[in-house]
Structure formats: structure tokens, C-alpha cells
């Protein structure tokens, strides 16, 4: 989970909701606190973390293994290079 919200510290100010360029966060209707609604669309840009006045958001980057780099895989497939073979030896 790249984004974590400490709901005990969250006051529901909405700064994170406003700041997210991917519309990932919303304010919960009942508790009126920030919730991660569309996690799949998160790009770990950290705008929520930077804008939260109460420091209750944490964003952790999981390093993407090179073999998981979707874009690079597609470029290689297009050139007729097997990405499994080509990327298997790559480190971070």
C-alpha cells in the first residue's frame, strides 16, 4: 500500500483531497476523514503528504523491479526482444 493515512490524526480538512492530481482521495461521508478511494490510480507523487497540515499521510515507494517496468517491456517487445530474457539480469 503506497499511501497510508493515519485516521486518528486526520481532521478531515480535505487538503489532501484537493491536492491529489489523480482524484485518489475522498472524504468519507460518515466519519468525514480522508480515505483512499482509487488506490489503483495513485502515482506516489506525494502531493497529499506535502499538503497535509497534520502530517498523517505516509507515502512509501516500493521500488519497481526492472522486470516489472511495463513501459520498458513494451518497448522491447516492439523490437522483437524477449523482455523476460532481457530484463532478468537487471538490478535496481
Amino acid at each position, binding site marked *: 500500500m503506497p499511501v497510508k493515512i493515519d485516521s486518528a490524526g486526520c481532521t478531515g480538512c480535505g487538503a489532501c483531497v484537493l491536492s491529489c492530481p489523480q482524484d485518489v482521495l475522498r472524504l468519507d461521508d460518515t466519519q468525514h476523514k480522508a480515505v483512499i478511494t482509487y488506490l489503483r490510480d495513485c502515482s506516489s507523487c506525494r502531493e497529499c503528504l506535502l499538503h497535509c497540515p497534520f502530517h498523517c499521510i505516509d507515502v512509501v515507494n516500493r521500488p519497481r523491479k526492472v522486470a516489472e517496468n511495463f513501459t520498458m517491456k513494451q518497448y522491447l517487445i516492439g523490437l522483437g*526482444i524477449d523482455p523476460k530474457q532481457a530484463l532478468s539480469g537487471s538490478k535496481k
Partner: protein
Amino acid sequence: MVKRQGLATLGTVIDTDILIVGGGIGGLFAAVKAKDKDSALDVLLVDKCEAGLAGPSAHAAGIVINWQPGDNFDDYLKEIIIENSEYLIDQDYVPEAVRQSYERVSELIDWGVDVQRDAAGNQIRIPVIGTAYGYGTPFLGGTQLTWKVRMQGVKRGVRLMSRTFVTDLLMTDGKCAGAVGFNVGNGKFYIFRAKATILGNGTVFFGRRPQMGQAGTTGDAAAAVLRAGGVMRNAEQVWATHGPAALDSSGVHLIFGSGGIIRNAKGERVMEKYNPKLLERSRRYEVARAILLEWKEGRGPCYLDCSHLSPEKITHIKTSLPRLAIALQQWGIDLARDKIEWVPYGLAMQCVGGVRVDSGDGAVSQMPGLWAIGNASDFVGGADSTAATALIASGNMGARAGVRAAEYAAGVHSLPIDEQRVHVLKKELFAPMQVKTGAMAHSDAATRLAEIVHQHIGLLKDEARLKLALSELQELKDKFSALAAKDAHELMLVQGLKNKELVAKACAQASLARQESRACHYRLDYPSRDDKKWLKWTITTLDKDGKIKVRLEDIPVGRWKYQPAVA
């Protein structure tokens, strides 16, 4: 034509003098300068997210490329036109844009943008990539800059509307009468009636998933203009930058301006072969392409090597790129010692191909009442990282368009809106919300589109793969009626995907048409540039049956100062 009461049954009608779509640096400057020109005008700025917080300009790593008095001017212009844009750029545009970059940066500083200064308080300037003559001013973080411009707009009474996706233009008798859109949170439908409309809603980013700051850039401007009967230019020019394989990160100006080196699997310095003059400071897409060519030739992977840099430079890089620094620390990577795998990033159009505009003011060709600025436009034709074509240039184009739009709006009345057209657009827009379960998920379609584009319309193209791309894109488009959206957020994603598909097709067709390599466009089957036959722009339109058409138009180099020897 329909009375206002008819429209009101379809959605919320909003009247304004100037509608600005997109709150990046271009749209924000347009809003400020429109108000400065005529404070009595109503200016409404609409953003898919929040003006000043989204899009590439709000996530720039921290360099504003700009020219200042005392910098080389003539050689810089020549380099931009000849070596950087390879004659694609409009040469009338460049000198003013370069000069005005200084005015815009000075304004930003007056408005409180924090730029880096030396101990004596002088602005720090560093050499930037893509040029032997250009400089940039480091500043502290992307949103710090765009938010300050937003606050200037707020101070002048610009109205702001957030979380609203403008999807299509409304044309009346060949003029732009406004636009339609919806709120991405609650799905409310809006009809904007505007005397003047400025599109500052960016380019297309073809990635499968959002890459930092790029999520909203789904080709909305180009797609809307094509659907409204307008024109794209340079659609074959697909750009990419490069960066660490394990993390999406900006910062190439800083890293390579500081002296970082890219090596291949054999330890060779990659760019010595492809551009011995500028090396890693070559145009970003040139480096991205070089890395891929190394892979193609069996010399991948490629790595960033900073082991030769001084501790001060390493510290400067980490301080200026906090996201990268935090990630490296989390992973236990030492920039001073370890090599970091380096790859080309996802494809985008980034102001190199886009809506055709007639001048540096952003007036859209043959569509009175409409402007397209910054990355939404095509004006910078192939050039990368220059004072006439980078971040501040988008702001400058916005500033100029804002003034022109204000002059225009002050002299016209609102045009009537075609209710039937609004009805059709609304029905098409919301159709995915009527699709039942079991239908196609947006994420699957988005993945498939990204596969097609990166495999076949990417940094290294050829005829067979471009034709394959067109056939695969059509196959994908035929499934679009099965795309389902369960809420307004998903509708935003689906509409963005449809726009991306249209622009991808335009790119593939234009790439097929240009049988040479120039700037961002590289054909493996036509790897050389041919100035004798190909001093031409590709011009892309959509016919009434929804098919992409590409024609060629001579670049008028004959009336300009810089011409290749064969012209």
C-alpha cells in the same frame, strides 16, 4: 437554435466571457493576463483536478529554462531552430518567445516564487540539457510556482472551478461558442457558454497508469479539436524522457546538468556515439532513443553513473530532488557509489505535436474564438528544453493568449448553442454509465492501448509496425461500446482513454506519412533526415466518418532566415 430554457434541461449552463480549460502554468497565466487586460471581463478557469496542483507544470522538478539579458541570443536562436527542432518550429515565433521568457520569470519572482540564489543573493543559473547555450534557474519545487500564479489569478477575481473535465467544444457557424463537461466527483453535467475559449489542458501521455503529474493529460485538447473539425500538426512527433527504471522521477536537467553519465552494459558512455557534442545533455527523446537503440544492438541495460561527481554535486542533486532522494534512501542506494538502471520513459506529445495554432498567441487555425496554448498546441515542433518551448514558454503563450482572448471577448456577443448537439454529446459521454457488468474494464483497455502505442508507435518505428498499430487500435476501439463506468471518476478515466485512442491513431497515421526521421520522429526504415523531400509538416484531421486523414504541407523555410542547404 434553442432558447436557454432548453439547454437548462440538459445540464447546468454557465456563462462566461473567457473559458480557460486547464490550470497549469499556461492556463493560469492566461487567466491573470486576461484580467490585467480587462478586469471587467468574467474569466472562468476550469480544471480536471485543482488549478495549480496538477499536470506537468505543477510537478516540474525545479528548473525554469529562460533566457536573460547577457546570455547568448543569436547562437541560441539558431540552435533552437536548426539543431533542436530540425526546422519544424515556426521561426517567426522563436525570437519573441525567447525574449519574453525573461519577462515571465521576472514576474514569477515578483510574485514570490522562490528561486535558488548564491551567497551574494544573485539568481543561480545552470546549463540545461538539449542546448549548448541555454540556461535555467533552479527553483524550489513545482507546485510552489504554479500555486503562486493561481493566487495572482484569485487576487484579480478569476473564478476557479475544480474537478471538472471539459470534454467537447461547441461550435456555431465555425466559431467556438463554448464547451461541455462534467464534475468527476458527482457527475454533474455542465454547458459552458463562452465568448472566448482557451485550451490549456495539456498534451497526451500514453502511459498505462498515471505517471507523476501526467494523469490528467489524456489528449483532451487535441481530441476535442479534432472532433470539432479542427486540425493537429506534427502528430508524428512523439516525445519521451528518461529516468530511473525503478521509480518515476523527474530531474534530468539537474542530474545531467551536474555531470551524470549514462553507460551501457559494457561500461561505454552511450551518448558519445549518438551525440558527442551534447552527450547526456542531448534532447531528452534523443537520449531515450539512444538507450533503446543500445538495447536493440544487445548492449543493454544502461545505467546512470554519478560516481565521479563531487560530494557537493551529489548533495545538490538529492536536495533538489527530494522524492528521488527519499526513494534512494529507502532502497539503500548510494548515488555516489551505485549505478542506477536508466530507461526511456512513457511516450507523450509534450508540445511537439498538438492542436495547430497560427501564432505564438495560440490562435487555433480557422476556429475563431478558440486558443490552444502550451502543451495543448503544436507550436514548438520537435524542440526540447528551450526558453521558447519549455515550462516558461507555456506560461508565455498563455499570457499572450489571455490578452488576445480578452480583446476578442470584449468585442463579441455570446453565440447561441446548438441544443441538439449538446444532447448528442451528453448521451455519448454518459453511455459508459449505462453499460452493464461483465463489460470491459477501463484498466484492461488502458493496458492494451499502452501496449500498442509503446510497442509500435514508439521511439523506433517502421511501416509494418505502424500499420499493425492502426489495425490493433481499431480492434480496441471496436470494443469501446463495452467500456463501463460505475461512477464519475471511472467516467473520467473512460473518456480520457477514448481521447488517447484518437490521438494515438493520429500519431500512427502521421508517422506512416512521414518517410524520414526528424526530431522526435524516428523510422528504422527511414533513419535519415531528408531536407530535400521532407521540409513538410503533417496536418491531421478527422473526416465526417470519424476517419483520420493526414496531408502534407510545405514548411515555409523560404521566407525565414535559417534554411537547410538543399532548400
